[in-house]
C-alpha cells in the first residue's frame, strides 16, 4: 500500500518522537504498527533513511519479529495461546474451533476485516488456561462456546460503534 502525504507527515512525527532514543528501531516499528496496523512498504525506506540504516536492515528486522506485519490485518487482534499449559487444558480443540467458527486460518483476517486470528506462545495466564487475548484484554478458561461469546460481544460492540459514528 502506498503512503499519501498525510501519512508521511504522521510517519515523520513518529520517527521524530523516537529518534533520540538509544536503539530506536523497535519502538518506531511498534508505533507504526499501532498507528497503521502494519508496516507499510513505503515506510521502510523513510524509516531507514532517518535512522541511518539501510532498507534491507529495516526489512530484516520487520520480518524477524512476529509482531510486525507487512500487510494490513483485521481491526481486532485475536490471539489463541498454543503453549503447553494451555494445551493441557484444551487449547488444541479451541484452536480448531476458532478457525472453523471464524472461517480463517492463523495469520488471516475475517472477510469483514474485523478480526485477525493468530497464535501466541504464552500470555502468562497459564494457571487459568486456556487463554485468549483480544487486543489488550486477556481472557481465562476459554471454552469453544466462551470463545464464540467473546467474538459475538466484539462484533456487537463494533456494530454499535459503527451506528453511532
Amino acid at each position, binding site marked *: 500500500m502506498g503512503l499519501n502525504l498525510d501519512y508521511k507527515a504522521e510517519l515523520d512525527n513518529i520517527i521524530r518522537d523516537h529518534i533520540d532514543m*538509544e536503539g530506536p528501531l523497535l519502538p518506531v516499528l511498534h508505533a507504526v504498527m499501532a498507528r497503521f496496523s502494519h508496516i507499510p512498504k513505503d515506510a521502510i525506506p523513510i524509516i531507514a533513511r532517518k535512522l541511518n540504516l539501510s532498507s534491507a536492515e529495516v526489512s530484516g528486522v520487520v520480518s524477524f519479529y*512476529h*509482531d510486525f506485519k507487512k500487510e494490513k490485518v483485521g481491526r481486532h487482534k485475536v490471539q489463541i495461546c498454543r503453549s503447553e*499449559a494451555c*494445551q*493441557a487444558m484444551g487449547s488444541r480443540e479451541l484452536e480448531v474451533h476458532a478457525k472453523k467458527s471464524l472461517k480463517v486460518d492463523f495469520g488471516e483476517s475475517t472477510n469483514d476485516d474485523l478480526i485477525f486470528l493468530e497464535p501466541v506462545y504464552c500470555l502468562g495466564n497459564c*494457571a487459568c488456561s486456556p487463554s485468549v487475548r483480544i487486543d489488550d*484484554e*486477556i481472557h481465562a478458561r476459554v471454552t469453544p462456546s466462551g470463545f464464540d461469546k467473546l467474538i459475538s460481544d466484539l462484533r456487537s460492540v463494533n456494530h454499535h460503534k459503527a451506528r453511532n459514528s
Partner: protein
Amino acid sequence: MRKLFIPNDTSAVAMGSNLVANRFEELIKNKSLDIQIIRNGSRGMFWLEPLVEFESDFKRFGFQSVDLSEVESILEFICDDSFDAALNKHPKFLGETESIEYFKKQQRLSFFRSGLGDPLCIDHYSSLEGFTGLKKALEMQPQQIVDEVKNSGLRGRGGAAFPTGIKWQTVLDTAHSKKYIVCNADEGDSGTFADRLLMESDPYQLIEGMIIAGLAVNANQGYIYLRSEYPFAHATLNTAISRCYAEGILGQNVLGKKICFELEVRLGAGAYICGEETSLLESLEGKRGLVRSKPPLPAIEGLFGCPTVVNNVLTLGAISTILCKGSDYYKNYGTGRSRGTLPVQLSGNIKRGGLIEIPFGISLREIVEDFGGGTFSGNPVKAIQVGGPLGAFVDRDKWDTPMDYEAFSAINSMIGHGGIVVFDDQINMFDQARFAMEFCAIESCGKCTPCRIGSTRGLEVLDKISSKKDVEDNLILLEELCDTMEHSSLCAMGGMTPFPVKSAVELYKEDFT
C-alpha cells in the same frame, strides 16, 4: 471505613475481577455504604480468582471465585456488624486468607507484598520495607554491595542459575564510561508467570533492585526488556516508573543523592529467542534477535558494546530483599548450592494453579499433589514438564526429586525459571514432542544449522512416525537428530529442544508406535 480488596492483575482480570469490582462499586454507591475498594495485586492463588478480601480486626478474610451474582450477598455479609468468621456460612467464604494451607505453607520473600495492597502506591510499598535496601545501598561502596550479593548465594532465576554476584563483579571490574543494567522480562517460557506477577503486583521491588544493581556496578542507565504479550505489566511498569521519577527515586538525584539512574521499558516483539540474553541485547539495539557467540560475555561487551548486567526480573527483585534483610537472612533459606526461595509456577491441568514461593528442596510430588491437589479434570496425571518448553518431561519415579538446581540436573532435567506444567491422561505425548520441535522451528533465530534445519527435519521425521512409516527406523533417526542438535547448537534453543522430545519418546513410547 471498611476496606474491600479486589485483585487487579492479568489473571484476576481474565477471571472477571474488573466486572466484579464495577458491580461492588455500583452497589456501594447506591447503598451509600462506607466501604473503600482497593484494587490490590494478586496473591498468586489464581485458582481462587477473583479472590475478594475484606479487612476486619486487621485480618484479611476472603471470598473465592466471586461471581457477579454473589456481590450483593457478600456485601451484606461484610456489613453485618455481628460478623463472626467462625459462624460465617457464605458458600464462597474462605476464612482468613493467610490461613489457607496453600498460602500458609509458602515462605514468601519475593512475593510477600504481592496482593497486600495497591501495587502502584509508593507509600504502601515503603510501609512494607520498600526502598530500605536501596537506602542501605546508597551508603555502601559498590564492592560492598557486590559482596553482599555474592554472600547471599543468589543465582540467576532466568534459567541458567549463574551466580549473580560473580556476574556483577565482572561488570564492576570492567572499566568503561558507560554501563547498563538490563532486566530480562521476556518471560518466554510457557507455564511461567512469576515475573509477570512481580511486575504487576510489586513493580517497585524490581525498580529498586535495578537501581541497587546500578549502584553496585556504576551503571546509570537501565532497561526493562518486556515481552509484548504482557500489556498489563507494560502499563503497570510505565506508571510505576513515572511515579518514581516524580518522587525523585529515579532520575538525576536518586533519593536526593548525587547518583543518577535512568530507567525505561522496551517492548519485545513476539520472539521467544529474545529471552536469550545476547539475542535480547541485539533486539534492544534495534536489530534482528540473532544470538551472539560468546565470548565476549555481555558483562564485558554487552549493550552497544558496553559492560552490561543482564538479570531476570526475579533475580533483580531478590536484590531488594537481600539488601534490606541482609545476605545471611536470604542464604538461610534453601539447600546445598541453591539458596533462597524458588517461586514455582504451577499450571496446566491442575486443580490449584498459581504461584508457590518455597525454599529450594521441596519435591515435585509435594507441589503437584499437596499444593496442586491433582488435575483440574480429576483424571490421573500423565506427564509433568518442568522448566518451560525446553524442559524435559519428568519420569514418574523421579517425582520425589527435591527441587534444587543440582538435583534436577542430575536427573537430566532442569528447574529453569520454575515452571511446572501438568497434563492429565487425555494428552497424547506424540503431540507434545511434535509441538516442542515445531516451536523450535518457529522460534529459532536461524543463526546455526542444527537448530534451524534440524528442527524442520525433526518435524518431518515425527510426521513420518505419526503416519506409521518405518516407525522404528525413524525413531532412531529422530534420536540421532536430537543428539546433533543437542551437541552442536549455539544456544539452548536448539541445544535443549531435544530434552522434551527425547523424554517424551522414552517415557511414553506407546504414544509413538
